């Protein structure tokens, strides 16, 4: 049974056997990096601070702006997988695929890096490379593409479990991408 997913102006219809998340991390607030440095003692902090449970800036400093991140996969997405899925890719089998859509802020729109228009949905197996990965894992191949759609800047990052299954996985990814819509913010 297929499922639909939507949030923050992004929607998708997932093929059978796929699951996904559209998430937005917490925006850091409170003490700035400079403020924290200003009041820091000259020496070290405590071991409790090393654990970092409630230290200032523990999840980033004010000014940092999280944007929506989409993870779509034909396997169970683990928690704590990281925005580009490093916590998921090492669990992938040869028959698995992971799609990541990572959004940038409005200041990125119009930059040369995002000159390409539109979310790709006609990927071919030869587009994927063993070195096009955040972290190289033997057998896996990846594809990354920066683009703008609906006045929003993104990068698409796709990881396939193996080149052997690339034709099938690419077709499956294309179906998923073709069913993904991005609306103006």
């Amino acid at each position, binding site marked *: 049974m297929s499922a639909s997913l939507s949030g923050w102006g992004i929607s998708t219809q997932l093929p059978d056997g796929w699951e996904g998340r559209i998430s937005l991390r917490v925006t850091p607030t409170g003490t700035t*990096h400079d403020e924290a440095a*200003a009041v820091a003692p000259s020496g070290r902090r405590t071991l409790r*601070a090393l654990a*970092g449970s409630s*230290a200032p800036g523990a*999840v980033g400093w004010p000014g940092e702006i999280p944007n929506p991140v989409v993870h779509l996969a034909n396997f169970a997405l683990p928690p704590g997988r990281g925005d*580009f899925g490093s916590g998921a890719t090492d669990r992938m089998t040869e028959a698995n695929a992971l799609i990541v859509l990572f959004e940038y802020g409005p200041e990125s729109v119009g930059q*040369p890096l995002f000159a390409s228009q539109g979310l790709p949905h006609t990927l071919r197996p030869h587009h994927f490379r063993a*070195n096009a*990965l955040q972290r190289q894992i033997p057998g896996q191949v990846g594809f990354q593409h920066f683009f703008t759609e609906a006045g929003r800047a993104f990068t698409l990052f796709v990881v396939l479990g193996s080149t052997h299954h690339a034709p099938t996985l690419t077709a499956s990814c294309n179906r998923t991408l073709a069913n993904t819509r991005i609306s103006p913010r």
Partner: protein
Amino acid sequence: MTDLLPPSSEPAAGAPAKASFPERVVSRVADVLGGRRDSRRGFLTKTAVVGSALAVQPWDFITKPASAYDVVCGEGNACADGWSVFCCTINGTNSCPPGSFTAGWWKADASGFCCGAARYYIDCNAACGSGWTCHCNDKTCDQRLVACNQFRYGQCHQEIACYGPVVCRVVTCTPPWQYDHTCTTASATDNRTASHSAPCLPGNCPSPIAQLYADLGGPGGALGPIVQTERPGPGSSGRYALYARGAIYQTGAGVHEVHGSIWTKYQGMNTVHSSLGFPKRNTGTASDGATRFSDFDHGSIYATKVAGTREVHGAIADRWYFMGRERSILGLPVADTATAPDGKGRYSKFEGGSIYYTAATGPHEVCGAIRTEWLAKGGPTGFLGYPITGQRTPSDGKGRYNDFQHGTVYWRRDLGAHEVHGPIFSRWDFIGRERSILGYPIEDQRPSTDGVGTFSNFRGGSIYWSPATGPHEVCGSIRDKWTVKGRETGFLGYPTTGQRTLSDGAGRFNDFQGGSIYWGPPTGAFELHGPIRSKWLAIGGVASSVGYPISDVVPISGGREQASFQSGTLTYDPGTGVVTVTTT
């Protein structure tokens, strides 16, 4: 590695500082690792490694049998693990090596390396055509990949669309958008990399000064090697450390560095004891992309390509900041803030003008042709004095002007820059300046022909001043008639009133020392003086039966004088002293 240790961690002779729990653990374990007969350097090196281990896996390291080196590089440190190497491992400094650029970043939350705050990883991707080739690092335990992963986080240098693989990773506790201003604040997180480290990186929660030093590249970075370890002061507040090419100061405003020619300049000014005070932001790049600058409590130092390294401080700096710094009409400083020739004020020169300041007048910019005109008239020690406004735009939006203590300078492209000062300025100001009938000045104020007074010419008239008469404007047809009559050197002399409206609400007149000039819409301007003028006024002036004059007072036969009016004449016979009114 030793150089990266915060200097404060060195045991002071005779008076060891009170150590935190992690410090005591680190020291104890280092003792065990190295034995008690190690050299001091050996001790410090081992302490640093243990510190890294403690930051990477604090509980495991303390409780499980393992060497510090086994864990100092964290998880995934083998080439086959597929991660990218740290820059300091291959570059000797925690910064992007040549042929690469900051291309994107992510963070790991709650990192022990950053005292519980987020730790940032900044990818250095190969520049297109730079020639980097993929290989495994084979030195130290950080044996991760060099220039292999064709992947980009994408928040930095988005103007660069062509890129190669990740050469290596810089790691900082400073947010990337502060580390490199091309980086955006779009957040990315990957806590899987939280334990990744290298022997060349600082370990367990360094002091803020040591942390910033490491973020800036450590000994191989812009600051260079340590030459004086971290210590209190100078002065009564904060801490600081000195390096070969700069310094880092920690104050209530944060932790900030100064380096390079800016540091040399700052040293020459006696650093924190100077008029600049403490640094309050790290050296940054100005909007031109080439000029470096540092901000201090009370000013800035700019290292310019054209004019060298220059400082601006105090109220002048505040004004310049308010105007937009180098993006303003003033541009970059081209000289240090200096004392004005009269010893009362200060000024700074910029590419496009100057800012002058006194306690009485405040800081104000003077630019372009107005500045040239003002300086030609003596500048602050001339008759105009110091500026009391910045450069402003007149009501018509066409020109520019500055007001000074004793006058003004107006500029318009088609008229040039001209000053007006003293009583004449007061009068022009009173009647509405460029909005008045006079409009813009078209020349500088100058002495009258008779050497007694002064005058200024404007587009719509003149203002004449003499000690006996004060300043008064003369305009249009009345001024033309006065000119025909010889102006101030003629029998009419200086104006004693400005241009006034006659009782019918339509005509205009000026009184002069020797008579008056009356102008009416249907008749034009004519002068009346002496008994004829007095008689005409006595019978009602323009409201009388004769109306407006249509001639000047002219001599006629018999030594008499006569003026013609719309409906008659007035004739004066000096022999009888009588003025005869004849109506037609």
